[in-house]
């Protein structure tokens, strides 16, 4: 199925234009409220949590004097000093393990991976030392640690630097996996992650760092915090449910705009947490719309979409009016060439097409049935 989608995308230059016009149209009606970039949201969340709890510290490569490879930790070294904003050598296995050991002893480390691709060098400590300790020690040793950094496809950086790890970490019991989309998510979820007593994998997206989002006064309050394990319905709809996380939420919202013009009302769910997965919100939505499209940047096999599909088949099979559509990254390592790279990750038009297919197909069935 994916292969077919890809082929169609290859010929779809026109749909890109449509997407662009949709974006510019939306600018006109955004609220006049305050805005914040995801970068500032993350930075302020770190700042506030470090200021509230002296046990919180940040460690990683270039987090201090360089101000963060992506400037997420900008200004923190100056404010909190080198003891709490710790520049480490380039030794992921070593410093991740050190973070875990510090968390064993009640500190609250935030370990930054320059990108999550480098967490592969330290995955032993994320899985074996962090995720399993509370269980192996029968609750004696909890590991309040946050592993954070940009995840997923960036642009033009090739296979080793473009990889979504959401489903990898989400398949491991003992970890909580958060995937913020907006500035509100970034602030609320990072603050929740730092305060959480368990290891949290916090998957940011490099391409979202510079995006601005509207934020309410509530979001800017230093006590603001989002619940882990709870999805957010970003846009209500009645014809089809689209689940997405991280950057793909933006794509799903764009697709929903396009679909609205064609008379299809899409409900967009921002998953926010991949583990624990908010199955009840997803199933409630599917029971309402009777159609489901899952969107993710990661590989299709054993992915987040596969898990959501299973959950819906298990809990809401009778409500489905169309086969579940799964949109995922192409089942290949990320190519470098820009045109191939674009083909390898989901695009807005893929979502639009899948939504139409889900809806039209069910209409067709109805006609045949009558």
């Amino acid at each position, binding site marked *: 199925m994916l292969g077919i989608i890809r082929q169609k995308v290859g010929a779809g230059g026109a749909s890109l234009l449509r997407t662009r016009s*949709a*974006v510019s149209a939306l*600018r006109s009606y955004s609220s006049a409220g305050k*805005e914040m970039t995801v970068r500032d949201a993350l930075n302020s969340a770190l700042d506030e949590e470090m200021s509230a709890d*002296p*046990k919180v510290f940040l460690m990683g490569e270039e987090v201090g004097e360089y101000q963060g*490879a*992506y400037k997420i930790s900008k200004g923190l070294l100056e404010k909190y000093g080198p*003891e*709490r904003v710790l520049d*480490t*050598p380039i*030794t992921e*296995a*070593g410093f*991740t*393990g*050190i973070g875990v*050991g*510090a968390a*064993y*002893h009640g*500190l609250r*480390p935030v370990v930054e991976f320059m990108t999550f691709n480098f967490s592969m060098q330290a995955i*032993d400590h994320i899985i*074996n*030392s962090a995720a399993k300790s*509370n*269980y*192996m*020690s*029968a*609750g*004696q*040793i909890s*590991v*309040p640690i946050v592993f954070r950094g940009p995840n997923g496809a960036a642009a033009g950086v090739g296979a080793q630097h473009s990889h979504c790890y959401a489903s990898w970490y989400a398949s491991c*019991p*003992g970890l909580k996996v958060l995937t913020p989309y*907006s500035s*509100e998510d970034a602030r609320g979820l990072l603050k*929740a992650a730092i*305060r*959480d*007593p*368990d290891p949290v994998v916090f998957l940011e997206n490099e391409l979202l760092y510079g*995006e*601005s*989002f*509207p*934020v*309410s006064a*509530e*979001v800017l309050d230093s006590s*603001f*915090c*989002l619940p*882990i394990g709870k999805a*957010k319905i970003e846009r209500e709809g009645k014809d089809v449910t689209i689940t997405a996380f991280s950057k793909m939420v933006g794509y799903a919202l764009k697709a929903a705009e396009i679909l609205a013009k064609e008379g299809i009302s899409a409900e967009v769910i921002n998953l926010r*947490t991949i583990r624990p997965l908010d199955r009840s919100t997803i199933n409630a939505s599917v029971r309402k719309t009777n159609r489901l499209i899952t969107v993710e940047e990661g590989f299709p096999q054993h992915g987040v979409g596969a898990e959501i599909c299973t959950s819906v088949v298990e809990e809401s099979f009778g409500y489905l009016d169309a086969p579940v559509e799964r949109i995922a990254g192409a089942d290949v390592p990320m190519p470098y060439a820009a045109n191939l790279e674009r083909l390898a990750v989901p695009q807005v038009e893929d979502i639009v097409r899948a939504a139409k297919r889900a809806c039209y197909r069910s209409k067709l069935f109805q006609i045949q049935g009558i």
Partner: protein
Amino acid sequence: MSLTSSTKFAQPLPLNTTSSRSKEHKLLFEPFRTNTFLGSTHKLRCFNSLSKSNQTNLHRRSAIVAVSDVVKEKKSKSSTNLLITKEEGLELYEDMVLGRAFEDMCAQMYYRGKMFGFVHLYNGQEAVSTGFIKLLKQEDSVASTYRDHVHSLSKGVSARAVMSELFGKATGCCRGQGGSMHMFSKEHNVLGGFAFIGEGIPVATGAAFSSKYRREVLKEADCDHVTVAFFGDGTCNNGQFFECLNMAALWKLPIVFVVENNLWAIGMSHVRATSDPEIWKKGPAFGMPGVHVDGMDVLKVREVAKEAIGRARRGEGPTLVECETYRFRGHSLADPDELRDPAEKAHYAARDPITALKRYMIDNNLVTEQELKTIEKKIDEVVEDAVEFADESPHPHRSQLLENVFADPKGFGIGPDGRYRCEDPKFTQGTTKHSVQRRSKPSRQ
């Protein structure tokens, strides 16, 4: 392995191999000089013995003195001053006998089907665990490997709790959820047995980091807790070892890296796996003292340990200690142990650390034979009691299966009042309405 590759492999050894093993050890292996078994360590050791002169030079050249020599000096200078008091001697003896008796019982219980999976026994290495851990305070931490029963016992976890854990019972120190290779005790600061090579070293370094952090950032002036990380010779070829030596020295962390060099990583001989078998020399390379000590002599280990732990506690940074020791049994109870020479085993069996301590104490009139017998009898009873306790203890209830995956089982975060944040009426899901993401700025640096 082909004949040619074997020859190539052996070639550089006389140049950079300076075995830290004792002289008699090399003599012991003279008979094997003619053995040409490919890939065997026998042949390689012959090269060691050829480079004897080279070796002594290297020892001299290093700025770091092997502390076992210091102990010898101290002994000769003050022959009347014993290294331990009677009470200390009895404590050490009891701990070592407990370690030995406990492990022997484990073997019995394993073969009787009472415990399962991988069970790695510590027999022969007791001087290391006892020599270090008995100098630690309760607040000090110990990180171990899969060979972790005895480290836990030395640190104060009861024989009952460890045995029950091995039996997979609810009364075990981890309620049966950890097992042989994963002993944890928050109360005794046993940070766990880590079943992967090198995995425990960064975690231990992190524990040491937290001591420093608590003292310097959280201003807990009295926090002088030390962490001791135990690991084997095989681990010293793993990157995490080097990564942590670097960071521990860089940040002057209160940690002691203790290599229990028992010569064998399962079936891989240390000299066949390591370009320079003298592990202690890697300490100075990272700017920390490196010490080599006879790990079959608890008193020497203890002297070295005192110095290293003291250095860590004073905030003067880490130490790397290589303890030359030997395991009397196979790698695990599933290991047929076919690669090690009977002569090598016999050599170390004759250097049994428990017998050595006994001899020292009796020779110096510290204790009587009877006093030691009393301890042995007491330990037999402790171990018997542990087995009975474990046997009679209940299996974990099936409801336990899903417990302890998260410290916060709901996954919603716990507030300062100890209640779930999501139950707080002021808690929010976030109310901002998003339409589409807007206004992109280039985000890459």
